[in-house]
């Protein structure tokens, strides 16, 4: 369980906790597999494009939805992918060894304040002989300047919190927090992301607020003295923030009490495509574990 500084999430956690205790008290609530036919398969494209301020080969991944009866992976091959900003155009080339993976032809770093346009062509989803075109735009936010990062071991939770010291800029910001241990990203799955907007602390000093947790029970998060812990703060845009929030809701599933009704994950790509063009700045700060006693 994560208790982070997204107020809404804290409140959700309180409800979940209350519900869990109640069900526990009654010794009820179980799950079991059942027969239920999904709807007839519908093919659509998923576009997963990432552009950050780190100088690297930027990546666009293209693939199709899969059928429940034929769950083989279906990558989108031979598409034309470009990212433009002003007059500059960067082509993305599909790697022969990774079908559906398109890397920028040169390494480059996105620049805060610039707007980037993603264009994908040469895709024919319905095989009707007409190319489908997909576009997206996003503006890179400025990087957050962190003063320092600390950690706190919390024995009763058997977890380590990563705490951040930084000034939140005055403009509206959206953040995603990621934890690294010894250079390995350990919160790399959607359900481990932690996002917040700064509605409730805009322009304030973060003052050591907890941004991520490392849990002892997970092999890669079980820290020891001498480990280097890194907190990555991604300054993201509203579209990526909405994508993470909606994707986490979908991942958590639905019941009559929480979540509303199922729906496709929020997308910022045209032509009814699923996916996200995520453009963000990455800031990192590290600390070393010393004197840890469990």
């Amino acid at each position, binding site marked *: 369980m994560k208790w982070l500084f997204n107020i809404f999430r804290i*409140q959700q956690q309180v409800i979940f906790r*209350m519900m869990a205790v109640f069900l526990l008290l009654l010794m009820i609530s179980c799950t079991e597999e059942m027969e239920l036919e999904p709807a007839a398969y519908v093919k659509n494209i998923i576009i997963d494009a990432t552009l950050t301020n780190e100088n690297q080969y930027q990546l666009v991944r293209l693939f199709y939805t*899969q059928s429940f009866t034929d*769950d083989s992976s279906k990558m989108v091959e031979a598409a034309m992918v470009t990212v433009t900003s002003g007059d500059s155009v960067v082509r993305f080339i599909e790697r022969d060894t990774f079908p559906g993976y398109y890397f920028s032809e040169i390494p480059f770093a996105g620049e805060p304040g610039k707007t980037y346009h993603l264009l994908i062509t040469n895709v024919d989803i319905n095989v009707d002989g007409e190319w489908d075109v997909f576009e997206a735009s996003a503006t890179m936010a400025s990087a957050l300047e962190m003063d320092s990062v600390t950690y706190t071991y919390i024995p009763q939770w058997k977890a380590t919190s990563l705490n951040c010291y930084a000034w939140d800029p005055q403009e509206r910001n959206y953040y995603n927090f990621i934890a690294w241990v010894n250079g390995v990203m350990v919160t790399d*799955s959607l359900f481990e992301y932690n996002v917040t907007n700064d509605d*409730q602390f805009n322009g304030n000093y973060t003052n050591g607020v907890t941004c991520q947790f490392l849990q002892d029970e997970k092999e890669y998060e079980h820290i020891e003295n001498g480990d280097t812990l890194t907190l990555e703060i991604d300054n993201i845009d509203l579209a990526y923030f909405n994508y993470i929030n909606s994707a986490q809701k979908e991942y958590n599933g639905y019941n009559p009490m929480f979540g509303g009704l199922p*729906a496709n994950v929020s997308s910022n790509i045209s032509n009814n495509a699923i996916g996200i063009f995520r453009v963000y700045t990455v800031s990192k700060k590290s600390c070393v574990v010393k004197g840890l006693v469990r």
Partner: protein
Amino acid sequence: MIYKKIYLLVFLLGVVLISQARSEKNETYEIRGRVYDKDTKEMLIGATIYIEEFRTGTATDGYGSFLLHLPRGKFHLQISYIGYKTQKEVIEVIGKQDVAFYIERESQKIQDVTITAERSDENLKRTEMSVEKMKIQQIRQIPAFMGEVDIIKAIQLLPGVQPAAEGTSGFSVRGGNMDQNLILIDEVPLYNASHFMGFFSVFNNDAIKELELYKGDIPVAYGGRISSLLNVKVKEGNGTRWQGSGGIGTISTRFAMDGPINGDTTTLLLAGRIFNAQLYLLAMQTQTDQVNGVNLFFYDINAKLNHRIDKQNTLSINFYNGWDAFNQSVAKFGYGNTAGSVSWMHSYSSDVATKFTLLYGRYGYRTSASFNDASGFVWNSNINDYGFRLDNTVLLDSENTIKFGFSSTYHRFYPGLIEPIGSESIFSEYELFPNLAVEWGIYGSNVQQVSERLTLKYGIRFSIFQNVGPGTVYNFDTNHEATDSVTYSRGDVYNVYQGLEPRIGVIYQLNEASSVKASYSRTRQYIHMASNSSGGTPFDIWVASNQNIKPQIADQAALGYFRNFWFNQFEGSVELYYKEMHNTIDFKDHAELFLNRKIDGEFRIGDSWAAGAEFQLKYNFERLNGWVSYTLSKSRRDIPEVNAGVVYNSPYDKPNNVGIVANYKLNDKWSLSGIWVFASGTPMTVPAGFYVQDNVLQLYYKDGDRNKVRMPDYHRLDLGLTYSMPAKPGKRWAQELNFSLYNAYGRHNAWSINFVRDEETNRIYAEKTYLFSFIPAITYNIKF
């Protein structure tokens, strides 16, 4: 200015109705009277007085009195009331006179076993339709979920009423949303009538006297919700001696005491209930560390003071307070209701009575958390209602009963204020804009007995809703993006909605055993719940209509046939209804309803409709009573910006419903009860594909597929067994033990269904979550 207009309108409406309804009278005399409990001298509301010679009668009103117009002569009356022996009286009418009847309880057991709350053929002649009335004695007979007698669980068994989700006390009436039900406790609205995440209602059965549920044909005196009115009445104290009741059950410990405090003119009722959580927590601490440090409770308090000032004036003060708390080391959460009302009832004459009521209602929740010095915050949210209402009844003659009055409520919705805890907290104070509004209602109605067989009921309500400053309202473009906002000053009336709500009914008695009824009603709803949850949570936010959110409007027409058989021991009914709802509220996909100042932009508005046929057969023998019901219904939504514009099933659409309730008295000590319910599966959306992104499985849905398939059908059997120990002669203590078994055959009814992936094989399959297998419970009750 508006006050003057309303007073003038009330006055004019009263004059018009009276003048229209007054007709030539025969030479009759007024017989005014009251019906009392023989022992306690408590006034009995809803007791029936049947005149054998005319095969007709009346019932005592909300003030405990009745009025008859009879010609000179000798008449045989039958006075009856649930749980009491029917008493025969003879009166000789020689002129205008006052009478009082004292009737005797059937037994001194805790549970009364009569299910008929009214005169045996009252259902045929009652001027309302689509209404269900239940006494608490009736509800206590039904097997209770976890042994906790709950009036809302009982009404969920009635035709046309659905639980919002298994185990929850939220309910849907005739396909409507949960927020379309007006729930009143002694006239005060409750915004969240639940405890413990909705699993139990706020009503302590020791404090409750009776309830009325209007599934349509809502009395014109009430407005503000478009689906139903649940009117819950708290017991008055008795005027003879102090008496008490209480019990210990699987869920709660409760008590109630009532009696006189100043002769028999002033009575007091006090009742309380507390959740037995600590027992569970202690038991579970040995099993798991998840409950360590957890403190959990809920409580209810009811109090009611009645004071008879003189023959013409009565004062009544009612109070309710309840709270749920969930506390642990780093986070605390609590929510609850407070309701208070003061009523003054005055009889100007034998024909004219008035009731003036002041109301206060509050619902609020509070969350606080502090994981370290930097992350401490407290979040408060509440809804406050301040109101009054004036209700007048004029018994014009034996053919016409006129009611008129008005009401006003000042709503103050305060969605949230977040404040930092301590100087180290990073949080700033953050406030969601309060919503202030005033809701007015003015009404008039007449029930007119046109002939021996034909009765008409007609009335009209005029409602006004005003948004009042201070307030900030965002403007939105066609894509629901906020463009700018306008801030209004204190006292500014910056938006007004108003409209007429006609209500019409006709009752035609075909013969002594059958009648047909028809009704039409228009209702308007100006405040709405913004919730992503179909079952309801304590965090659900209420918002007022404004420039962006129009009032919901419903038009409902119903036709019913009522027939009694076998000396009224069987009561059969068929009701057909059609309901059209406009400005129905739904939300965009993944709507953000918490901490959102631009929440209006999350709403999606459209139309909806519901239709159905409700069949019910009640039976009432000496030892066996209950009912069988079947409902066939449909409920659809047409919201242009939801589900790609395709019409879809409402979340509460369950076409087939069966309810069977049976109570059997084995002997003086043992009685058995059972219910069986069946409902078509809840509508759900299934995926048309899947993909993996950010290392997790995601599902893909086809546009237009919302709520297109159904979960498996729901059915359940509950059983109850009661052992009664009546008070011994000369003693006051009566006891009983109640055993109940919820979901007796342990069916795994689906609460939710999700498609998940097996981590080892990567196979994707449908996984059902079910809440309850069978749950036994035991409750000990006592009365003295």
